[in-house]
């Protein structure tokens, strides 16, 4: 019997890295948004928070877009 442990390990590793990246980045983006809201409430612009948020969300969307691209062209 030929069990493809290599492929299994690869799937596990890829899933772990990609999910950690997407969820982590998204969470950082949310923290940025939250910082912006808090800053605006206290009268400052909070643009640093907004920049963080936009960057993080953009990377998340790029990763998801690449995933869909892989599905369609597979």
């Amino acid at each position, binding site marked *: *019997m*030929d*069990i*493809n442990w290599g*492929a*299994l390990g*690869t*799937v*596990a590793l*890829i*899933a*772990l890295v*990609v*999910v*950690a990246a*997407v*969820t*982590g980045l*998204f*969470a*950082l*983006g*949310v*923290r940025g*948004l*939250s*910082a912006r*809201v*808090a800053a605006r409430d206290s009268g400052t612009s909070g643009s640093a928070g907004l920049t963080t948020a936009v960057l993080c969300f953009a990377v998340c969307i790029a990763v*998801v877009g690449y*995933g*869909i691209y*892989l*599905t*369609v*062209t*597979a």
Partner: protein
Amino acid sequence: MACKGFSVYHAFKWNSYARRVNFSLIVGVVIVAALAFDFTNGFHDTANAMATSIATGALKPRVAVAISAVLNLVGAFLSIQVAKTISGGIVDDTKVTPVVIFAGLVGAIIWNLLTWILGLPSSSSHALFGGLIGATWIASGADAVHFGQVVQKVLIPAVASPLVAGVVAMAGTFLVYRITESARQDVVSRSFKTAQALSASLVSLAHGTNDAQKTMGVVTLTLIASGSLAAGSGPPLWVILSSGVAIAAGTYFGGWRIINTMGKRITEIETPQGFAAETSAAVTILASSHLGFALSTTHVCSGGIVGSGVGRKLAEVRWGVAGQMVIAWVLTLPAAAVVGAGAAEVAREGAFGTLSIGVFLIAIALGVFLWSRRNPVTPDTVTAAAEPIPATV
């Protein structure tokens, strides 16, 4: 049946590869059964993508199933790598006849209906494989079933994939809660609602590209076996369209019982957990199908939900419900195989046998439907609180 013959007649005109031959009754029966299986596949698996979004209120129940239905249909058209073989080498394709396929489909449909009435998320793929294995075994002997392939392509992924998705979802959930701990909770809850709706949609799309293909494969192979299509040709447009529509219709129908189990009964889900669970499921499905590693969407999504329950502090997993699910997973393949084998045995009696199986299937479906009316789960009651989590001893 007359209606089916009509559409099939038109299909000939659409498909230049088609050769003009007489359609036997059994081909029509298999096509109807395949589309019926596709429909049950749809409502059985709506929960995979949408249960947690519905449970957290990220999407309204009816909106969720509508989005999922549309994306399943889109997914059916996106897939290019159409199932060349329905069995993936699990049974000897040269020994598969339309009658065997029909018997296998009967086994798969009956198991899907019974697990649905009990609200158990079981794998539609395993039901289909099980049905085919049982029917092939009876029709052509045990030699026609490749048991090594069954272990390698069905059993190993069945154990591994929920574990992988579960561990990954646990890590993702932990990370999300850790990072957003100090953030404003109103912003957190708003953001993750949106994120969850998006991640759930991704799972629906992935589901459409995977599961609608199985039905296309079944129908195409039957057409090839009966000489209506040239060997090696892809599915004609009407096959892609009808398979996509059947799975989308099933998805829209809702399968509220299983949604209730996955969204409410396994663990109480918050939006960040749902996001982590769905992202883990989608990534695991995409990564493994890209590497040619077959797995069940149901197993992956359930594993992700359990993992997200473990990964959040103070969230409790109802291990009794998780245990019931695992029992259903273990039983799915052999149970569908037994029904498929029984159907194949009866079908040996010839056309009358095949007809009786069809009647039997319709009777079961009707019975299950009437049974479900006694204790309906609807879009309005699907998020009702489950039984309280018993205090840990």
